[in-house]
């Protein structure tokens, strides 16, 4: 633990963890919004909460911000216990999905709001508002009202307003979901630049896996009120630990397989009439019996249909994608009867062609059958 000189205001002890969530849970009546969750966010880290709508992402943000009270558990910010601290004393910056700019104030007044509540001098307020507007490239819009700005500009005002108070943590709740695709990409880059320049601890919420993979240092994948896996984007994409993560992030081919026995490196499987010895990265393997074998499209290779060890399949559809073609195969060994893989455009095949499918030894993962214990 180190004590850095304070940026402003009373001195703060700067611990290693900007945010620590310790067994926090939350229910609304009978709806469990959040199962007990443990999460540590490092200082300066860009962490993304990724999951489908209704999985509890906003609930976590609201708990960190103090808008909701946890049923159980404790929350620490900069190693300070804040569970009982009211939201206006938590020094957290928030960007809402709908921006939530004050419609009756100008851009300058919006950005200055958090400085006025802190009774910061007029001169300093002016300087800091100008700096914040420079940061988001909105110098020329200082006197406008929010409704006179485009969606992207409103987004930037919201960001400037949250940043100008030098928050301990920045929370963003699906900030780009209302923007069109080009603008979204531009804003992603801009946010990422600002965040790393300021070294700002950031919790970013999205249901868009591409956005999560491209922006985050770490991703917490959530479903139904709990965190299913936390890791770097590479870990999440290459080594998903369960079926939910494998299908939610990236494309997945799921085969019905039989786990014959566990081996030193992994497991021996029967799949599509052949056997496969798998080297696995997984911590736990399911018990021998029927299992699901997960393979990324780019891990499958096309072979001749009669090649030993290959799974048989028939081309159902080939979809031209510009840089490559997507080949959809009918494959009885697949759980939903279909397998997808990507091939160079020249290697696309006609519907009805019989092909073989070879699976690699490394990369795929084994999960318990859907509905069974995971």
């Amino acid at each position, binding site marked *: 633990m180190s004590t850095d000189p304070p940026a402003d205001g009373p001195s703060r002890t700067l611990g290693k963890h900007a945010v620590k969530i310790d067994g926090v849970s939350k229910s609304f009546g009978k709806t469990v919004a959040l199962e007990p969750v443990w999460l540590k966010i490092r200082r300066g880290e860009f962490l993304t909460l990724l999951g489908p709508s209704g999985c509890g992402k906003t609930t976590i943000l609201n708990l960190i*911000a103090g*808008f909701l009270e946890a049923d159980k558990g404790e929350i620490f910010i900069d190693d300070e216990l804040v569970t009982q601290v009211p939201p*206006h004393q938590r020094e*957290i910056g928030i960007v809402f999905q709908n921006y*939530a700019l*004050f419609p*009756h104030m100008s851009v300058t007044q919006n950005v200055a709001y958090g400085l006025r*509540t802190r009774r910061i001098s007029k001169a300093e307020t002016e300087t800091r508002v100008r700096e914040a507007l420079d940061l988001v490239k909105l110098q020329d819009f200082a006197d406008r009202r929010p409704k006179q700005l485009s969606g992207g500009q409103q987004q930037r005002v919201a960001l400037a307003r949250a940043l100008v108070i030098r928050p301990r943590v920045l929370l963003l709740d699906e900030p780009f979901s209302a923007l069109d695709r080009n603008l979204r990409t531009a804003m992603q880059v801009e946010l990422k630049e600002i965040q790393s320049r300021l070294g700002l601890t950031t919790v970013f919420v999205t249901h868009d896996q591409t956005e999560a993979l491209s922006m985050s240092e770490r991703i917490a994948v959530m479903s139904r009120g709990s965190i299913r896996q936390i890791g770097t984007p590479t870990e999440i994409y290459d080594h998903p630990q369960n079926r939910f993560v494998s299908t939610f992030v990236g494309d997945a081919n799921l085969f019905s397989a039989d786990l014959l026995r566990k081996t030193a490196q992994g497991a021996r499987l029967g799949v599509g009439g052949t056997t496969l010895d798998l080297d696995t990265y997984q911590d736990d393997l399911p018990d021998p019996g029927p299992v699901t074998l997960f393979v990324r499209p780019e891990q499958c290779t096309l072979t001749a249909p009669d090649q030993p060890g290959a799974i048989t399949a028939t081309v159902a559809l080939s979809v031209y994608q510009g840089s490559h073609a997507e080949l959809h195969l009918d494959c009885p060994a697949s759980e939903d009867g279909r397998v997808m893989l990507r091939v160079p455009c020249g290697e696309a095949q006609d519907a009805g062609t019989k092909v073989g499918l070879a699976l690699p030894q490394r990369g795929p993962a084994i999960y318990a059958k859907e509905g069974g214990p995971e």
Partner: protein
Amino acid sequence: MNKRPFLGWFASPSILIAFGITASFLAIVQYSLRAHVPGSLDPGGFTLENFTTLLKAVYGQAFLNTVLLCFWTTVFTLLIGYPLAYAMIRAKSLALRSAILLISLTPLFLGEIVRTYSWMIVLGNRGFLNASLIQLDLIDRPIDFMFTMTGVVIALVHFTLPIVVVMLAAALSHIDRNLERAATSLGAGRVRCFLTVTLPLSIPGIVAATSTSFAWTFSAFATPQMIGGGKVQTISTLVYQVGFASFNFPLAASLSLVGLLFTIAVLAIFNTGIRRLEQMGAH
């Protein structure tokens, strides 16, 4: 051809009503321009005399009373109605929300006469209010509520509250909760958050509630008639008195007409003032 085949059917009742209103309005205009023949219900020839009669002090006093009643009723209704509406929108418990709604709406269901009689019982010299104040040793002698402006205002506030609470609640419920959350996250405590975000954003609702309350109180009749007991004359009570005690229909008609124009003028001035304010705020 017609894209909305039922529109005509749906609109027909409103045409009927519009016709009725126009007809009665024209009748009033016509009456107001006729001479009063004492002892007869039929009016005499055309004249402007009714309007010159209205310049007498007694009518001026009634106009003044009416405006004062409207003003104070509106002020107190807003002061009571705003917190009620706020609590109704923001209370966490459904039971509390329903209770507030029920309490603020009951005056609508009571009926004018029952409600006003209840107030006469409460406000009388030996009524509930004076008895309580004396019991609590707050006063020695009963305060005169009956037949005073104060008493009429108290009863009118009760009368106006439902409409104001409903209008303010509608306005408050349209304020995005995230705006208050944003203010809070930026360091604003409850009071600052209310004064800088919630209150300014509910101004359109306050304006609408004010105009409505004004018009609502302006047209009130039973309450000033029974609680004012002839001591607090308003335009409505005077119309009644002139028309149905003295049977001077022409004068009653001209009084009604001037009252109507007066209400329109007051609301117009009010709305222009607000628009000016808004324009100033926008720059």
